[in-house]
C-alpha cells in the first residue's frame, strides 16, 4: 500500500476504524474492485504492445484526453458560477433550478445525445440558425464531443462545488466584506481558496466522467476515427468483433486515467 499513509503505531491505534464501518467498507471495496479483476483475468497480455502501437488506438486516446480536459475547463468556467448561484444566490425558484441542473445526471446519456441534436443539430433550435447563417454544423465534429461530455459531466462539478460552498463558513466572506473587499475580491481571495478542495474534487469527477462518456457522444457526435471516436467508442466497437481487444483498450484507458489522477492528487496534496 501507499507508504505515505503509514503512521506511527500509537496514532494508528487511536485512529483504528470501528468494525461497524470496516465491514461494509471492505464489502463495498470488493464489489468495486472485483469487476476490474475480472477484466485483468481475461486480459491477453501478449497483445498489449501491439495494441499500444496502433495509430487508431493512439488517436482515440489522444482525442479522449484532449476532449475530457477541454470539458473540465469549460465546466469550471461555467459550473463554478452556477454552483455559487445555487449556494449563495437568493432568488425564487432556486430549488427548481437545482433540480434542473441535475437532470443530465438522471437522463440516460443516449437521450441526452438526442436532446443535444434537437438543439444543436442541422434542424435544431440553435443548430439550424448556425447552419443557415454560417454554414456551421456541430454534430460529427470534435466540438460535438466536448459539448456532449460537458452536458453529461458538468453537473458532477456543480454538485460538488455547491456542497463545498454550503459547507464553507460564510463569516469569513462577511469579514472580508466589512474590511472593504469588493464582491469579486471576496470571491477570488476568500471564497475560492476556501472551497478549493471541493472544486478540485468536482473537476476530477467531471474529468473522469467525461473520459468514460459514451452514450451522448456516439449519439450526438457520431463515430469517426480521429475526429469523434473517443476511447469508449473504440472500446464499444472493438467489443463487436473482438472481446480481448476491447478489454485491452479498456485497460489502457483505465491505466492512463489512474496515472493522471494519482499524479495530480499527489501534486495538489503535497502543497501546504
Amino acid at each position, binding site marked *: 500500500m501507499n507508504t505515505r499513509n503509514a503512521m506511527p503505531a500509537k496514532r494508528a491505534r487511536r485512529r483504528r476504524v470501528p468494525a461497524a464501518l470496516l465491514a461494509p467498507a471492505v464489502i463495498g471495496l470488493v464489489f468495486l474492485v472485483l469487476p476490474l479483476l475480472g477484466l485483468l483475468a481475461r486480459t491477453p497480455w501478449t497483445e498489449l504492445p501491439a495494441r499500444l502501437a496502433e495509430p487508431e488506438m493512439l488517436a482515440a486516446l489522444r482525442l479522449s484526453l484532449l476532449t475530457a480536459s477541454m470539458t473540465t475547463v469549460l465546466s469550471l468556467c461555467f459550473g463554478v458560477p452556477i454552483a455559487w448561484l445555487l449556494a449563495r444566490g437568493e432568488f425564487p425558484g432556486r430549488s427548481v433550478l437545482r433540480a434542473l441542473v441535475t437532470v443530465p445526471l438522471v437522463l440516460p446519456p*443516449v*437521450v441526452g445525445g438526442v436532446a443535444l*441534436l*434537437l438543439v444543436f*443539430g442541422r434542424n435544431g433550435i440553435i443548430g439550424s440558425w448556425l447552419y443557415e447563417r454560417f454554414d456551421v454544423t456541430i454534430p*460529427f465534429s470534435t466540438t460535438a464531443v466536448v459539448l456532449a461530455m460537458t452536458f453529461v459531466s458538468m453537473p458532477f462539478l456543480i454538485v460538488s462545488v455547491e456542497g463545498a460552498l454550503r459547507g464553507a463558513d460564510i463569516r469569513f466572506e462577511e469579514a472580508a466584506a466589512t474590511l472593504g473587499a469588493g464582491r469579486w475580491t471576496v470571491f477570488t481571495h476568500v471564497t475560492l481558496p476556501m472551497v478549493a478542495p471541493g472544486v478540485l474534487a468536482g473537476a476530477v469527477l467531471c474529468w473522469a466522467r467525461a473520459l468514460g462518456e459514451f452514450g451522448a457522444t*456516439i449519439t450526438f457526435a457520431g463515430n469517426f476515427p480521429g475526429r469523434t471516436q473517443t476511447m469508449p467508442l473504440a472500446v464499444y466497437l472493438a467489443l*463487436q468483433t473482438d472481446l480481448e481487444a476491447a478489454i485491452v483498450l479498456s485497460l489502457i484507458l483505465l491505466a492512463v486515467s489512474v496515472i493522471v489522477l494519482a499524479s495530480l492528487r499527489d501534486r495538489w496534496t503535497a502543497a501546504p
Partner: protein
Amino acid sequence: MRAKGILAAAAAFVSLAACGTGGAEAGSDGTVTVLAAASLTEAFTEIGSQFETEHEGVTVEFNFAASSDLAAQITEGAPADVFASADESNMDKVVAAGAAAAPDTFARNQLVIAVPAGNPEGVTGLADLAGLDFAACAEEVPCGAAAQTALQDAGLAPVTYEADVKSTLQKLLLGEVDAALVYRTDAIAAEGEVDAVDFPESAATVNAYPIAALEDAPNPDLAAEFAAYVLADDAQAILRAAGFQAP
C-alpha cells in the same frame, strides 16, 4: 411532420436503449427469450405476437441489439432460448462457442441508400453520395461490413460510422445527414419519411440471417418451436412484407 419524425426517431432510440437491459430472464413458465438483431425489430415483434396468439400461455420476450452484442452476451453465458443474427459471422461465433448447433438461414437483406422522402438531393446511386454528408454503419457490425466494401471501391467516406443500423437511420430521420446506408427493411420501416434508392454494388454484399435454438435454452421445446415457426410460411410472409428477401 418533421417534428413527428424526430419524436418517432427519439422514441425508437429510447426503446432500443431500454431493450439492452431487460428481457434476459427466462423461466419454464412458457416464456421464450429471443435475442434478435436490431434490424429484425419490426418483423420479429409481429411474428412474436402471432406466435403468442397461436400458442396459448406463451410469452415471447425479445432483446433487440447489434448481433455482435448479442453473440457476446450468449458466449458469456446470458440465458436465452433463440438467437437470430443479422450475419453469419456472429452466428459462427456462437456455434464455435458450442452455444448453438445447427443454424438455418431464414432471410436475406440488402443495403440501400436511404434519403429523405422526395429525394431532395436527387440521389440515384452510390456516386451521387460524393459531396453529401451521409451515415453508414461501422465496419465492426454486419451492416457496416457490407457497406464498407461498396464504399471503399467508390472511394467514399461517411461523416460517421454508427454502431448499429437503427442509429444510422436515426441520423437521417433527425435530418443530420443527407443520406444513410441502411438495409432495405429499415428504409421500408420508415416509409413515408425516407425513400430507398437501390444501388447495384449492394448485390455483392447481401447479408444472410441465420436463426438457431440455443443449446443452454432454459426452455428448449419452445426454443425449437419458435425457430421452426420463423422458417414457416406465416412468419416468412411477414418477413417478406418487411422487405427481407427469401433465404
